[in-house]
């Protein structure tokens, strides 16, 4: 097994086992979406119209809050030092950790999204576009969030700072993700344009995220 695959498997095991917190992200997602109707009222047409936006926002918050411990737990138990000393390129290690994180928190969200979407009165085509946009867009959220997690790795109150740093940077992903998801519900915009740009944003974040996060980790751990 290559070092990168080993890290991938290790991170996924840690996330799934007791104390890992992979499923807490999904629970958070469901709770946030459930709370929205209590705030805006049980108006089904309205919920249907804003449904994709609510689900996207909840997914954004859930995937960011779960990132908090990604590097700091490794920093605390010393495995981050071992990773830094290893011969595997740090950028690729960070990429592997990001993929592991997305598989354990992003993917469950996407599985849960259609079920929660039913509560918001979304019909089948809307559910389908929503799932496709989340599938394409959530990796971008994870990889932008990686940068914040790497910057905040040694900090005491890292969690809140992480959200403050990362949330403004995710504005483009949110705009195009919701625009594409809305295409089947309301939206004057066609599905293709925002969806293509969303794909581009994800690909760009796959490159920029690991490089920036690796640079931040090297600077922090000196």
């Amino acid at each position: 097994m290559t070092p990168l695959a080993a890290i991938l498997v290790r991170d996924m095991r840690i996330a799934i086992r007791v104390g890992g917190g992979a499923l807490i992200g999904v629970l958070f997602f469901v709770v946030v979406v459930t709370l929205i109707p209590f705030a805006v009222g049980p108006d089904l047409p309205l919920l249907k119209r804003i449904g994709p936006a609510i689900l996207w926002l909840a997914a954004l918050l859930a995937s960011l809050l779960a990132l908090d411990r990604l590097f700091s737990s490794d920093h605390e138990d010393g495995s981050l030092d071992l990773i830094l000393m290893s011969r595997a390129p740090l950028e690729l290690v960070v990429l592997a950790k990001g993929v592991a994180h997305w598989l354990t928190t992003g993917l469950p969200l996407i599985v849960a999204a259609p079920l929660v979407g039913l509560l918001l009165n979304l019909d089948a085509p809307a559910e389908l576009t929503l799932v496709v946009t989340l599938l394409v867009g959530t990796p971008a959220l994870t990889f932008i969030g990686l940068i914040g997690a790497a910057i905040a790795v040694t900090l005491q109150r890292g969690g809140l700072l992480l959200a403050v740093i990362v949330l403004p940077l995710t504005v483009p992903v949110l705009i195009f993700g919701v625009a594409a998801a809305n295409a089947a519900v309301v939206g004057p915009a066609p599905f293709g344009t925002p969806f293509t740009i969303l794909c581009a944003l994800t690909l760009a974040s796959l490159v920029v995220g690991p490089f920036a996060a690796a640079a931040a980790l090297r600077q922090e751990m000196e």
Partner: protein
Amino acid sequence: MAIADLANPSRFLTLANRSIPWLGGLTVIVFAYGIDQAMLAPDDYQQGATVKIMFLHVPSAWLGMLGWGLMTVAAFGTLVWRHPLADVAAKAAAPIGAAFTLLCLVTGSLWGRPEWGTYWVWDARLTSELVLFLLYLAVIALWRTVEDPSRAARAAAILTLVGAIDLPIIKFSVDWWNTLHQGASVFRLGGSTIYPTILMPLLVMAVAFTLLFFTLHLAAMRNEILRRRVRTLRLMQANAVS
């Protein structure tokens, strides 16, 4: 004095001490001329007297962006050359850039109320300026969270560079999002061209604001160098005791 001499904090301090009064004086003179010209400027045929707010709004928007640009250049200095003066320049620029961005938002909203009938519209430019303001606050929060100055500088430098990549994308997406949602209230400045009678005072005010920015930045850098000196002395003192 060669550029390399400036890299020494003590030399920089001497230069700053010498040039801050002159820069400040020049700023006051250009401001006096600019405000005089702005008051004399004719009203816009569409917007009336409120066009006078533009003389504050546009320069502060420009300086909000200049601040991030300056921080980006300094970030390279921090990460590539590890230069302490680059750290100082980046840290001093953040609150000033944030203040000018806030000024842009405040004047924009005071301009929006008579023009659009509301203090805030999700206009593309105002919205991207708001995100820029939030990013400034995030950088300042980061500077204030990390105890060790050079480590804080490197973390802030990475955030600044990521922001520099993301800001044009944010601008583009907000523009796209805005035209999608509300084409009606898209705002045009008295037709497509600005009249020379309005352009001239605007340029003078832009120069005045830029001078103000650099004076404040130089002074804030001087403060930061002194603050680090205090910190070093305190650490020395603590070491001597222990």
